[in-house]
């Protein structure tokens, strides 16, 4: 029976209460451990078409008569259009339409950041469109940009309200501390850098708009377009079969989609609007810079008594203020915690979520300062973390639905033990060390999410749901879940996704939510189909339903007397099909659903040149049941590698006087290459979260990037005594920190710190 409930919904750390209709889901979780299909490594169901270049991405789509768009974007950090005349553009060869400010809300006259869309031209070729945009007559009134986030806050120029979160009494906690450490940490702007740039191709078919778009959020785009055009949701068809990376930046319809829609309407032609790489590096979103002013108080035995944080998110001209304080609020058991988080509205392009927004930055600050504290206390950093372990949610004392962080710490021990040997390999110029950092993050997913399944007389099944696979392998995981529940081989399952007109509502792929949101719905749909198959088999063979099961493609009876291939049972149906449907149930009430983990990094630092090598990272994460260990390992490696880029080489720079972006290409903005990759050892606890859904699985997209920067920074401190306070840890920052450490007289004597006792013989 359908049941109406009120429940809490979380995406990327933002919560809202929603009304929800849920179906009862009586399925028991499978026992822990690998099963026939689930828990076994599986190669991607869509791997071959992607590898062969056959997969058609939005970037590859060419509709008959399709026009190309170029967008006039504001070249200044802060400016106003004083005058604009599109007429010269319309007169250019190949041009079919041009739109400007006031034609649609996404084209603006008041430009708060470089890259604000102002006007757009559709033409037969992109080169013609670009030439026409250059012909637009425009006069700018340049305005003074505010670039310093502290100044923006002083001027009360904010994105959102300041967020104060407090428990206990911070001042009292500091007063009772035996030791107080303080630190200011800064993180830079980094770019999601999807290799397929943001883009849409749209066409009107009768009264329906078809939007082919590179998106993480098919249903979100549908809703946005439907609301903006004031047409019913089902008159908007959103399609994304393959997409070339998003990392959080592709959750919205965005200006390019609405530009294409308007130009398609005006020209009666299909229209592509795709960002160039240079536009992508300016206007497609970013992980915003942060300033973190942190205080920790502790007893001499390491018990935390106070955690305080003043956080500034330099969000840019829009977006939202990410939960950069989240790790301080959630990671440790501490009675007195107070954080204030400001969103500074500066004249820079708006942030968009980037893989664990806020928590990556906040973990760098908090976990760096925790290690400083460990050093001051002469305490093993792993011990200090265990000492302050949060058994229940420290903010409201609710139990966790599942938490195995202590087990992660236990499994980290052998990696942590290597520090003695690693340090011993130091030379006069190359110092080596080991550091760790913990991870906490959401990733429980939630309703609503739906799946259908159809099983044919050939014993093959097709899962139908309008979700997207953004490269994380969620399509493969859904096939595994359906195969497992139906008891059929993996290669008998097809998954059809990526089209809002061809399947039910599905979760967005953000907040590590695809598997925990969609997986239970797919399992429920498969179980619904299985129930029907068993009902048919029971009638066919005159047995009770409760003694029948399906396994390895056979209908079997509990006593072993009956083993009939599924095809024989379903063969009766000819072209008829078994149809199953499933819905994601609610998250457990009164419980906190989070993911956990720890990473241990080994680094080498050339103390004369400031060069840092990351040699090895061991990652141990707790995300509930693992559906596909192969895909999970890829997620961990990918997250860590992005984390290494964030830590060492990536930095979007702007001119300090004008605010104009300088790193607009992939030459100046330095993503990691294959040569930057350390040895990566990944381990998953793989213990189903017993309170979470019929699967017990949480998401793994974001957790692995969270602790990487802090683990590397702590390893650097372990190796050299240098305390880095800024990301990226450029040569400049590394050499500064080394000089500072030298002045403190600590260089060359790292073994005296942190209570490290080298084993005999070292």
């Amino acid at each position: 029976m359908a049941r109406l409930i009120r429940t809490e919904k979380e995406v990327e750390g933002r919560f809202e209460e929603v009304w929800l209709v849920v179906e009862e889901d009586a399925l028991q979780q499978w026992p822990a451990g690998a099963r026939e299909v689930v828990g076994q490594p599986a190669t991607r169901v869509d791997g071959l078409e992607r590898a062969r270049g056959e997969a058609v991405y939005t970037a590859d789509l060419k509709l008959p008569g399709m026009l190309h768009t170029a967008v006039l974007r504001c070249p200044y950090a802060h400016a106003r259009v004083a005058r604009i005349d599109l007429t010269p553009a319309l007169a250019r060869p190949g041009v079919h339409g041009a739109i400007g400010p006031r034609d649609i809300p996404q084209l603006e006259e008041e430009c708060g950041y470089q890259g604000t869309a102002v006007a757009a031209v559709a033409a037969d070729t992109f080169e013609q469109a670009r030439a026409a945009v250059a012909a637009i007559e425009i006069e700018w009134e340049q305005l003074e940009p505010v670039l310093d986030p502290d100044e923006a806050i002083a001027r009360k120029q904010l994105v959102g309200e300041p967020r104060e979160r407090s428990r206990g009494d911070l001042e009292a906690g500091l007063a009772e501390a035996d030791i107080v450490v303080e630190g200011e940490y800064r993180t830079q702007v980094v770019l999601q850098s999807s290799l397929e740039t943001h883009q849409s191709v749209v066409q009107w078919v009768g009264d329906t708009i078809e939007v082919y778009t590179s998106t993480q959020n098919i249903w979100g785009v549908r809703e946005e377009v439907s609301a903006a055009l004031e047409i019913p949701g089902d008159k908007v068809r959103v399609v994304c079969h393959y997409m070339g990376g998003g990392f959080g930046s592709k959750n919205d319809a965005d200006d390019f989609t609405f530009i294409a829609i308007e130009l398609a309407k005006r020209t009666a032609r299909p229209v592509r609007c795709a960002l160039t790489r240079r536009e992508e590096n300016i206007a497609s979103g970013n992980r915003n810079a942060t300033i973190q002013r942190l205080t920790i108080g502790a007893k001499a035995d390491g018990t935390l008594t106070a955690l305080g944080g003043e956080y500034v998110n330099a969000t840019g001209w829009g977006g939202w203020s990410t939960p950069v304080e989240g790790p301080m609020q959630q990671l440790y058991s501490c009675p007195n915690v107070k954080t204030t988080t400001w969103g500074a509205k500066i004249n820079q392009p708006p942030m968009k979520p980037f893989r664990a927004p806020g928590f990556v930055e906040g973990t760098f600050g908090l976990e760096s300062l925790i290690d400083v504290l460990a050093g001051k206390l002469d305490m093993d950093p792993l011990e200090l973390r265990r000492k302050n372990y949060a058994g229940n949610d420290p903010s409201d004392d609710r139990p966790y639905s599942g938490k195995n962080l202590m087990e992660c710490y236990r499994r980290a021990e052998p990696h942590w033990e290597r520090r003695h040997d690693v340090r011993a390999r130091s030379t006069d110029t190359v110092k080596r060390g080991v550091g760790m950092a913990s991870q906490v993050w959401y990733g429980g997913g939630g309703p609503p999410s739906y799946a259908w399944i159809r099983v044919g007389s050939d014993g093959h099944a097709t899962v139908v749901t309008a979700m997207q696979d953004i490269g994380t392998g969620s399509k493969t995981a859904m096939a595994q879940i359906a195969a497992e529940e139906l008891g059929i081989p993996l290669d008998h399952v097809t998954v059809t996704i990526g089209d809002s007109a061809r399947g039910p509502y599905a979760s967005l792929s953000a907040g590590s939510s695809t598997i925990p949101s969609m997986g239970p719905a797919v399992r429920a749909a498969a179980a619904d189909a299985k129930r029907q198959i068993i009902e048919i088999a029971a009638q066919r063979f005159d047995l009770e339903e409760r003694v029948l099961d399906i396994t390895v493609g056979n209908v079997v009876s509990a006593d072993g007397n009956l083993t009939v291939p599924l095809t024989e049972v379903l063969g009766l149906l000819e072209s008829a099909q078994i149809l199953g449907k499933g819905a994601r149930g609610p998250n457990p009430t009164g419980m906190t659903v989070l993911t956990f983990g720890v990473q241990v990094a080994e680094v080498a630092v050339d103390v004369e040149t400031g060069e840092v090598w990351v040699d090895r990272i061991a990652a141990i994460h707790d995300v509930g049941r693992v559906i596909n260990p192969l895909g999970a390992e890829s997620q961990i490696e990918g997250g860590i590698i992005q984390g290494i880029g964030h830590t060492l080489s990536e930095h979007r720079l702007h001119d300090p006087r004008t605010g104009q972006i300088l790193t607009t290409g992939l030459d100046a903005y330095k993503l990691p290459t294959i040569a930057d990759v350390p040895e990566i050892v990944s381990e998953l606890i793989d213990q189903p979260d017993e309170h979470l859904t019929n699967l017990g699985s949480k998401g793994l997209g974001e957790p692995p990037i969270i602790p990487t920067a802090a683990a590397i920074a702590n390893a650097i401190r372990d190796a050299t005594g240098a305390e880095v306070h800024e990301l990226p840890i450029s040569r400049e920052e590394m050499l500064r920190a080394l000089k500072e450490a030298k002045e403190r007289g600590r260089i060359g004597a790292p073994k005296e710190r942190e209570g490290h006792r080298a084993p005999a013989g070292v």
Partner: protein
Amino acid sequence: MPEVNVNGHAYAVHGAVGTTLAEALRDELSLTGTKVACGEGHCGACTVLVDGIPTLSCITLVHAVDGAKVTTIEGLRDHPMVYSFVRADALQCGFCTPGQIISAVALVDSKAAPSTEEIRHAMAGNLCRCGAYPKIEEAIRTWQD
């Protein structure tokens, strides 16, 4: 009119001078397996073989490869390297993958069993934002399996 041999077929190039090889492949020949991610020669997504050598098609003028033999991912669809990439899970979003495979095939053509160092040296011009690098390395190490 320049003529280019693409995957064994001769094509007359119609585009104006200034058309890049990537544009000719994707727009004129509809061979969209070759991806363009930066258009400035910085990322390697557009890599194709020109007379057997990994070349950035987004900054190569198609008129400059008159008479050359061009191999794109469509010409390697059954190369063992393709299957090795799938087997090793050496792709996530897959957008850089055709370019990765082109570079990998050229590498193993010159040396069937390259060392880790050689793999890293030869593959450093193919960016993968998803970070499939460890698996790419594995795919190249095990392509003959």
